């Protein structure tokens, strides 16, 4: 199987980049997109050129490391699939593929298809946690949680932080990611004490990182490899608006 790649090549953060054309023949249709790039990189290495840099880790679709745009769609044309799980049989022989890195001010390009997503880590650090004594595991079922709340929290917690939502959004908004974290903790009893301050802090942090606004168009939901729904964004909005309205002066001694 033959594919024609147009890949964004950029040496480092400060350098200008450009699209470079590569033809690769002899690919196996059962290979994943990342394996196709591995094979291409072997050729490039033998020729003495720099291999194409892309992020990857588990190659099982669960770690959130990999991801780039394929022909203008984050993670490519297959629904709920990361690029490591996207096999070449979903493309036609001889097809032209345009591979570009996630593009957002908050995701500076490190090299080629690899971007710096530590802005996501800083959003998490601003409020995506619960403050509780750690130690030995608590007894099971000490805190009653309804099946429905547990399932919905789990659905939101499925977010792997790959950044496809930001990449697909015309506004480069991180609302689906931030909403998923806020919903995941806000649906559980353990997340209640910090629910209001979490919403205020994480939304503020998301803005400070330079992500854009949410216009509810649904591109993020469509490309999310974990099927996170727009509902998490409305939960974020709800918690943020309620917390903004109810915020009080700090208590004094």
């Amino acid at each position, binding site marked *: 199987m033959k594919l024609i790649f147009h890949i964004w090549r950029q040496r480092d953060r400060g350098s200008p980049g450009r699209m470079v054309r590569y033809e690769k023949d002899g690919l196996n249709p059962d290979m994943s997109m990342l394996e196709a790039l591995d094979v291409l990189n072997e050729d490039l290495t033998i020729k003495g050129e720099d291999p194409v840099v892309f992020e990857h880790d588990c190659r099982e679709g669960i770690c959130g490391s990999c991801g780039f745009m394929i022909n203008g769609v984050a993670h490519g044309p297959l629904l709920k699939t990361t690029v490591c799980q996207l096999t070449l049989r979903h493309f036609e022989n001889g097809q032209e593929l345009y591979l570009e890195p996630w593009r957002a*001010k908050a995701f500076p390009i490190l090299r080629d298809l690899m971007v710096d997503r530590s802005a996501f880590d800083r959003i998490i650090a601003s409020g995506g946690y619960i403050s509780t004594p750690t130690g030995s595991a608590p007894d099971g079922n000490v805190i009653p949680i309804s099946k429905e709340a547990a399932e919905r929290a789990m659905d939101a917690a499925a977010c792997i932080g790959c950044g496809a939502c930001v990449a697909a959004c015309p506004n480069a908004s991180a609302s689906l990611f931030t909403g998923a974290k806020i919903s995941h903790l806000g649906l559980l009893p353990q997340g209640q004490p910090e629910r*209001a301050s979490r919403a205020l802090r994480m939304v503020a942090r998301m*803005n400070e990182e330079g992500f854009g606004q949410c216009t509810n168009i649904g591109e993020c939901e469509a490309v999310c490899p974990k099927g996170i729904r727009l509902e998490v964004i409305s939960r974020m*909005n709800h918690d943020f608006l309620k917390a903004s309205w109810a915020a009080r002066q700090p208590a004094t001694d």
Partner: protein
Amino acid sequence: MSATVAEEGIQKPQVLRFWSTTTGKKAVMAVTGAILALFVIGHLIGNLQIFLGPDQFNGYARALRHLPELVWPVRVILFISVILHIWSSIELAVTKSEARPVGYTRWKPAGSSYASRTMYWSGPIVAAFVVYHLMQFTFGVGGTPYNRLDTYGNVISGFRVPAVSLFYIFAMALLCLHLRHGLWSLFQTLGFYHPRHTPRIHRAASLISLFIFFGFISIPIAVMLRVIPPIL
């Protein structure tokens, strides 16, 4: 659930902190958009009385002129809503353009509607239309014959000009698109989503915006087809 104003240690009035976030500005857009949409529906119901004849329509216009205690508060609220709606949209347009300094060579929509992607086109064009619409029917400087006391006649003579009617129909098509996304999006922005109710809100938004489109364009079309006769 509670938080303190000084949660982030920023000494800034809460209202300014609210406005400084994208979520806060979007909430302002949603509330002002809802107010403007309600006005549009009320305005349509008023306008459709033209099909009941000149006496009914001019009588309705006269009744409004004699109710300044109703008309002026509505005008003030609408004016404030328009200003806030446009102001927040401009600030968010800046945020949006800064959030992705380098674009993609290729980008393909995967799940968004045409209406949702064109809000920044439909909005300003509808705003430009509103300016002309006010010039034409409120201030009488739109270039078509105007008599303050004969609203019925103003509509007939205005819409007998094909360019005026065509611009009107075009603007209503864009308003319909704008509302098709805006009417459901505002619920999402204000924090309401429900797997059973949100699809209903989607359908209602489509139906209401189509009703608004066909309701408004029926008037210039009826005037051009001579279905609504001039007063003899």
